[in-house]
């Protein structure tokens, strides 16, 4: 039984392996970078604009609006990181409709890498926004007794981010594989549709959780309580 695309190896030389995870990650990166380069080469400010420019503008404004709702008040500072996370995961799960495509997020190494980048980005943004002393003091909120719990929470939420995305993507692929053995006709298509939905929801969840963590690390207490009450509603 194959659990992750790590086990498909295209090319090997010594200890350097080129497995499906790396290849499809590179393909997605190429698609995102070359696609946006081509689209942004001819930008127009007039009323007539290409449909691709419209598509990019819709994506950017929607992401910015979501970031504002979470509590990041100038989303332009964060959209480079958070928007890329969302687009990469969403494209990886959208690509599953192409036969032969293995989503790279179905491998634990990819999701751990994504979660680690969030783990590093949160203190970085916090230090840039608040300064190093104020940021380190935020670990001692409300009292210094909470320091170890805050540290544990920082690590456990990183693991949770990685395992959540990996488990969802892997379970989708696994269910389709099992159903192909039991009912080969029609039913796997329905599950693929469901997998598309969960893939998009998981991309959104990953993105919004990273945004919430960054908002909590950078924002003032007032903003934090407002955003957490938003989440608890």
């Amino acid at each position, binding site marked *: 039984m194959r659990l992750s695309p790590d086990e498909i190896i295209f090319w090997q030389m010594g200890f350097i392996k080129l497995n499906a995870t790396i290849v499809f990650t590179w393909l997605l990166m190429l698609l995102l970078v070359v696609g946006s380069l081509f689209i942004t080469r001819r930008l127009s400010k007039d009323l007539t604009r290409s449909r691709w420019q419209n598509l990019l503008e819709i994506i950017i404004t929607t992401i910015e609006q979501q970031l504002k709702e979470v509590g990041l008040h100038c989303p332009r500072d964060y959209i480079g990181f958070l928007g890329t996370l969302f687009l990469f995961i969403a494209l990886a799960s959208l690509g599953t409709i192409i036969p032969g495509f293995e989503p790279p997020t179905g491998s634990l190494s990819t999701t751990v890498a994504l979660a680690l980048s969030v783990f590093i980005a949160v203190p970085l943004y916090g230090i840039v926004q608040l300064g190093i002393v104020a940021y380190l003091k935020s670990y001692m909120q409300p009292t210094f007794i909470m320091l170890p719990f805050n540290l544990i929470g920082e690590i456990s939420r990183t693991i949770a981010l990685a395992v959540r995305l990996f*488990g969802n993507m892997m379970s989708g692929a696994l269910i389709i594989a099992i159903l192909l053995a039991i009912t080969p006709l029609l039913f796997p298509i329905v599950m693929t549709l469901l997998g598309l939905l969960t893939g998009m929801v998981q991309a959104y969840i990953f993105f919004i959780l990273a945004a919430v963590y960054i908002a909590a690390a950078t924002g003032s207490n007032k903003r934090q309580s407002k955003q957490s009450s938003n989440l608890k509603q």
Partner: protein
Amino acid sequence: MDSMTYIAIISIIIAGVTTAFGTMGPALAEGRAVAAAMASLAQQPDASSTITRTLFVGLAMIESTAIYCFVVSMIVLFANPFWNFAINQIAGK
């Protein structure tokens, strides 16, 4: 029965029990969350976008506990470290 058989039997039973108990709690919790969201949607249809957004985030957070159990049972079934350990022991003999 040798140790491999014991490891196989226990792994299969534990995988089933893990999935059974691990889906019970999240199923109840998701039902309550959706019921509460439905009630508040009926009361305030204007706030539907906020309610739906927070509902989806909450559902994914709840569901992730079931996903952890699923990942553990998959590891126990398909990538069992004790199984590999026993095989290495026998091969080393």
